């Protein structure tokens, strides 16, 4: 499976937010609720990642409860790619 770099995932996350008229902060610690990144946005990001790597990501939904910051999203997608 073709893996994306953390920077590439961040670019895709930025695209998701830009389409919604929002901006992704440069730091990894920003709170997702504060920047308006919701579960639908997360799902969209996953689809965009899947399109880039040409494979479906294997999700473990309960793990999402721990995702609160931008960095958590990037960590989680990186983790999914490695599985």
């Amino acid at each position: 499976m073709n893996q994306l770099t953390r920077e590439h995932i961040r670019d895709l996350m930025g695209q998701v937010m830009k389409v919604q008229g929002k901006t992704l902060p440069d730091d990894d610690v920003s709170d997702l609720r504060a920047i308006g990144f919701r579960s639908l946005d997360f799902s969209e990001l996953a689809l965009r990642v899947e399109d880039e790597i040409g494979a479906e990501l294997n999700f473990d939904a309960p793990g999402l409860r721990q995702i609160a910051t931008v960095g958590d999203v990037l960590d989680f997608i990186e983790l999914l790619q490695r599985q």
Partner: protein
Amino acid sequence: MTPPIGAQPAGDANRIVVSGRELIWRTLPDLALPSPAAVVVESGIDALAAVRRHALDGTELLVVAATRLDESLTADLRANGFTILKTGVETLPPTSPRAAEPGRLWLLTSGSTGRPKRIGHTLASLTTVRGLQERRTWLCPYSAGTYAWWQVVTLSLTQPGQDLVVVEPAELDTWPAIAAAHGVTAASGTPTFWRQTLYRDAELLVKVPLEQITLGGEPVDQAILDQLKEIFPSARISWIYASSELGASIVVHDGRAGFPTAWLDRAAPDRPTISVDGDELVITSPYHGVGLDGPVRTGDRVEIVDDRVIIVGRLDSDEINVGGSKVSAGAVRNVLLAHPGVAWARVSSRRSPLVGRMVVAEVVLTPEARGDEIDETALVRWCAPRLPDYGIPRLIRFLEQIPAKETLKSDV
């Protein structure tokens, strides 16, 4: 009224333009047919000759385009008593011969499994236009043997003053030139057919002197009705809900998408009764195929918006469940199509582990909009105030051309 079998069809003197030839019904080649016959046609002229033969002697007949016939369908038809007639190529006898059923016509429809299903009709049940009509020259762009094709063909065969210009599949891209050259005043096509024409050849289209424009075969949205009205302000623009199983059941002439709610559950002799059960369209039609009398669940999904009943798509594919919230793909498509820069749109869903399904779309922009920087962001912003957040397409792919199949539909 449909003439009895054996009588000269009332439209026998109507002009026909087909396969590059101009003739009249009466001068079509005399096609000798076994009965029952499945006539496999490469050209419109063979198809029309077969129809006239049926009108004259009641030959049990099925007309099918050569592109639609595969080995499995061939074997199935032969096993059901049909002689397969590939005009000028070969004749395959039935593997289980049987007596013919005089006056029977068969249509093939795509069954729920994708395997073609035969629906029995007669010339009378396929002839839904009966009153005296204004003189017109009709365009027939449909694939031979389909319900829509039969509608246009029976109109010309059974009504004086209804000429016919048949567009062969290879001529579809250039139909406005053919229509303008032969003075076509009435044309029937799917919304995809009209969108493709507007997208590809609007300049030539305006030269066709259209007085009657008919849409059907797919959900008809307000945007395409408005675009056609703008180009042909004095034409009557109608949309028809019809199927091989039920015949033409809903005909709307007021230029608006959907039909009035007042039409629901209104019983009248010799007219279809239209109902809604849950969100499914249910129709009882006098024009139904064999064995389909009584109320028939159409499998089409409707939404009632103000005083109109809008047909949005197929029940099994229209509803998208996004994290427990349901949205109609047809309703999303209509929002996209209402954008002035969008020529065509298809809305579907993709599996998403977090929310079940996500709404996604494919779009073709109008040629005029291509320099306007209409991108995904612009279309999402267009949708945002018009749809719930879960209904906004999350991935929008831009295509170069409007995809369409031989049925003139694009599986929207």
